């Protein structure tokens, strides 16, 4: 079995080459996922690069990305496979009009590969080429639907009652993401490596901004990262995500702002925060002490 990645550093560098800035844990867990042939469950707040990580891993390793977007009500027919009823019906009509075809023969015939409509999970394990399977927002499916995933995640195979067990031709790298709106089952977690993606450190966020917003100056990127760090320390309903940091940085560049002063921050903070009460809190925090400190510094 050949490995996709030579070392943890190779993962980090590969990701960087496709503009994804990984830290030690991200690079380490992706590396292990390949070596141990285990799926990775990525959990963390919104917009911290969970989905992007899977995409970037696919891109850096030249693998095809197959994505299963989860939603409430997702079922086997959408996730795994479905029989092509129309085609089966047609075949039944044709064959039974022959008169002398046995029913069991027809049955064998219509429950074969030809009539199978593969959905993302089946597609991922039957692929001949290297693939990365992204099972996005797995916390959205019901607990019972999670069970559909277990066989694939531990054995890389799918059992189809009419056909038997289909085994993977090659082991795909699998990433599952979750916003943690629901506890996932122990069974699922046991099968996965776990990666918590939190907001990046000041340094990494600055690097992300510099990478993703090439027109930005080092100085502005630094200010952006610092202000975002400070805002994340407030008790808010929703903290700014990395994608919001990036939106904000792009806007500042467009507006031609090079040094963010108080009024710039007040005017644009709605790009970072979504709730009115959060915006008010942040503005209050930016501007609260202006007068007091000014007097203090005058006095001294």
């Amino acid at each position, binding site marked *: 079995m050949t490995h996709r990645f030579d070392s943890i550093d190779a993962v980090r560098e590969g990701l960087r080459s496709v503009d994804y800035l990984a830290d*030690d844990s991200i690079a380490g867990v992706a590396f292990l996922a390949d070596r141990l042939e285990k799926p990775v469950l990525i959990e963390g707040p919104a917009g911290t690069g969970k989905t992007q990580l899977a995409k970037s891993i696919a891109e850096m390793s030249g693998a095809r990305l197959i994505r299963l977007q989860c939603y409430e009500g997702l079922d086997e027919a959408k996730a795994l496979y479905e029989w092509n009823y129309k085609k089966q019906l047609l075949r039944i009509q044709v064959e039974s009009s022959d008169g002398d075809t046995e029913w069991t023969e027809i049955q064998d015939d219509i429950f074969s590969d030809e009539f199978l409509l593969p959905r993302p999970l089946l597609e991922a394990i039957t692929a001949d080429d290297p693939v990365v399977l992204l099972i996005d927002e797995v916390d959205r499916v019901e607990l019972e639907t999670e069970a559909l995933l277990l066989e694939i995640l531990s054995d890389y195979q799918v059992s189809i009652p009419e056909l038997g067990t289909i085994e993977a031709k090659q082991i795909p790298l699998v990433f599952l993401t979750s916003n*943690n*709106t629901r506890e996932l089952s122990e069974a699922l977690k046991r099968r996965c*490596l*776990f990666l*918590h993606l939190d907001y990046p450190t000041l340094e990494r966020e600055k690097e992300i901004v510099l990478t993703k917003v090439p027109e930005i100056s080092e100085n502005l990127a630094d200010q952006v990262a610092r202000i975002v760090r400070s805002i994340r320390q407030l008790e808010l309903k929703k903290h700014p995500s990395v994608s919001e940091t990036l939106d904000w940085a792009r806007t500042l560049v467009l507006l031609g702002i090079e040094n963010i*002063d*108080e009024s710039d921050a007040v005017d644009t903070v709605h790009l970072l925060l979504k709730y009115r009460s959060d915006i008010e809190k942040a503005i209050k925090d*930016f501007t609260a002490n202006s007068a007091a400190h000014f007097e203090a510094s005058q006095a001294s």
Partner: protein
Amino acid sequence: MTSTEAAFSAKAGPLFDLLEGFVVELRNAGLPVSLSENIDAAEAVQHIDIEDRVAFKYSLAATLVKNDAHWKTFETLFEVYFSLRGPEYALDGDAIEFDDDVDFDPGEQPQGEGGQGGGDGLSPEELAELLYQALRQGDEALTRAIARQAVKRYAGMEPGRPVGGTYYLYRTLRNLDLDSVLDRLMEQRRADADKPLSSLQERLEKDEYQDRIDKLRREIEAEIRRRLVADRGAEAMAKTLRKPLPEDVDFMHASREEMVMLRRAIYPLTRKLAVRLARKRRHKRRGALDFRNTVRHSLSYGGVPVEPKFRHPKPAKPEIFVVADISGSVAAFARFTLHLVYAISSQFSRVRSFVFIDGLDEVTSFFEGVDDITEAVHRVNTEADVVWVDGHSDYGHALEVFWDRYGNDVGPKTTVLILGDARNNYHASQAWITKEIQRKARKLFWLNPEPKAYWNTGDSIVGEYASHCDGVFEVRNLRQLERFVDNLV
């Protein structure tokens, strides 16, 4: 190589024993590590360079810790277990360089008689000045060295002394007086600026210094742990670290730090709960067969009703009354419960809340039209009129007031939750009121934040009320509270 083979080959080395011991410690600390995860960890470490401590740590975390709330516990235990033991257990050479050979580099400072090493030769004032400079410049290596020196000097650690790390931490920090250091850093920053700092700049500068101070604090904690491990051994040390996980912290005995942690945990919890309940509501019930809709759909299958359609019933949502004791130690519990109930208020047709000590007041309006529950709960604690005579809990009187003023509003759609420890200071119970409430209401539940073992001891009279309740539950922590609220809907 399969996982079992890998686990087997790992068995050969001392690493395997070390790992086993570590997993035992994790389990002792309450982390649920399964056998298969243990095996995964053993396999994972085969694939990485053992000398690379960072990679080693993340490999173990990825295989053994599947809940972010457990990360801190893991990290501390990892440090105690792998970095701080005697050199014979160390994974690499740098793990232990105990005593005085810290690379103390006083930089351009004139002090620091060479030879003394570790900064022992500095006077307290010189050390303080050096610390100030290190923080000002953000010099991490120097900060670390100072942390070690400070612990050595100020913590007053003596071998075999049976006090916990918090005590040493407190003593060290008191001597360093970091609040004043922060003030001085800020003053210097203001003096250096050519014009007055704006409020935003103030805030950013302060956060930066605070971040450096936090790092110093962590270094101090690490140094204390390191010395404790050297003194007592890793196992004994790990034992003292068995702190409750956030979801298990007792409301009644939470420290200030734990309270902060609980408050942080509450919002994500309410969000999770709300999503879950909304889903449950949508899926739980399937109404009566919708005949017309089924027939309409059957047309596309040549009239065969293959896909029965159901009417979605609109089940009546209950109305909920929360009646909460907010005296002293149960206040935190009341606060979290109110928080959770309001967070899922869309699951009820209406929520009304009442708080009491020996008097009782309705506080529903505090929650109306606000989108910041924390704020509302804060107002409840400061503005509600709940004291009648002396501000000591009197459940009997509070219930009387409730019954007089609001008894008529309780009806067959009302679920009533009474929150409190039922410690009544030997006043009359007026338990007949709970009987009346139960008769009129849909359900009456009592949530008690005390351990069951203490119920009905001393002045607790929860038993008198319990006989008229549809359920009395011990709710001492977020985990139990979440479970109760989950089942309520």
